[in-house]
């Protein structure tokens, strides 16, 4: 992976993170909320190679750790998303079956975002954090998955276009 690709993809993730924190977060969804950033990151991870899944999972997690409203230790999201990146990298062939079918891919992104949030919560429990009751957290994860399922198809083509734009000539071959 070239340094330029690492830089421009990180920049794209940072911009998505800023949009998430300053625009999407202010939308008052009828039931909990939606993380555009998580959906975009997972959609990108699904198309990366083994190394890319790990690296961008880690970098994407570091950006999430920067969220000003977070009360968790810095690095917790990085650890959770490195784990998700690892799962993506070892199941590369299986994920390839989903990416060709839009509905299956959106479902996959929704489930992956739920798994990412669940991993983050489990890590929080292991680190002794108090994150509220099971029902509330289950509601947050479920709501995020539902919103991801319905909203992701709107911006997914744009994400794919941007990703293709960010690829170097060597990556495109």
């Amino acid at each position, binding site marked *: 992976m070239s340094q330029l690709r690492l830089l421009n993809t990180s920049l794209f993730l940072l911009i998505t993170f800023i949009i998430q924190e300053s625009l999407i977060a202010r939308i008052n969804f009828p039931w909990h909320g*939606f993380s555009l950033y998580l959906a975009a990151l997972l959609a990108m991870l699904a198309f990366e190679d083994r190394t890319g899944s790990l690296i961008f999972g880690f970098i994407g997690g570091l950006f999430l750790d920067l969220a000003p409203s977070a009360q968790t*230790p810095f690095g917790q999201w990085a650890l959770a998303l490195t784990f998700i990146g690892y799962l993506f990298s070892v199941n590369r062939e299986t994920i390839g079956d989903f990416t060709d079918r839009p509905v299956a891919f959106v479902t996959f992104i929704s489930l992956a975002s739920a798994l990412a949030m669940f991993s983050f919560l489990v890590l929080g429990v292991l*680190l002794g954090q108090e994150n509220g009751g099971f029902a509330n957290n289950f509601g947050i994860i479920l709501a995020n998955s539902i919103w991801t399922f319905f909203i992701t198809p709107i911006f997914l083509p744009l994400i794919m276009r941007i990703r293709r734009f960010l690829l170097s000539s060597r990556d495109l071959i």
Partner: protein
Amino acid sequence: MARGGSDRSRLLLVLLLVSSLFLITLDLRGVNLAGGLRSATQTVLSPVENLFAKVFSPVGNFFGDAKNLGKSRKKIEELTTEVDKLTAQAAINEDIAGQLNQLKGVLDLAGRGGYKVVAAKVINRGSNSTFKQTITIDAGSSSGIEKNMTVISEAGLVGVVKSVTSNTAIVLLMSDPTFKIGVRIAGTQSVGVVSGQGGDSYLLQLLDTTGEIKKGDVLIARGSDNNRPFVPGVPVGVVNTVQSNASSITQNADVDGITNLDKIGVVAVVITAPAEAARESLYPKPAPVVTVFVTPTPTPSPTTKK
């Protein structure tokens, strides 16, 4: 990784996991890495948040301005534009009036409690990926706001300041499941703890086993040492349903929050509380009933004449 994973990928995975764990360990051991980075992020984000707040709060303004672009049109189009402009202005006025009303209410509550407050506008909400219910306000340390200060609205408690930058502050809302506050029932003085449940409803656990709770009881903040994080006397909620559970040691009740956290636009951060606690004085008391006592005066009898 065993299935086709290279040594390089395995090494990378270990490196990234160790890096993450290293960062977490640093944070947990008190190295203020996260605080500094998050404050820096908040400082960077605040102009963007302010921009989006200005653009998306009065939506009518945005569309009104867009319609005003064509000025050299026919008369009817000018009039239509004028009507649209006035409609947009009315919407802005309504928005400003709403904010003004909330501000008036907040200052009124602060005045009754004798609190010195800093008013602020809500410019953002926390992302759901943090699992925390927060808002961002447009006033920070430059306005005298510090961590662990009470935040109130026109109706009552909103939350507590969790982190501060020079121009913004993050407020943990009282609906957050980790939020707990000591309260008293306004009438009976029984004490208890109100906890956030992640929604509009709250849980009251009465500490006094002999105390009574009934629907409609008003809950008032008890206050903390040195008024941090809670100043006393701020209305917190109203009891909605009393839970009847014979096996429970404590008496519980479902409580409706006194503040609608979905609709707050203006809040006030309590900088200093009065030396004497406000107690129940902030909650509107029922109008006094006038009672007239009539005492018959004895009529002077002729025999008493001198």
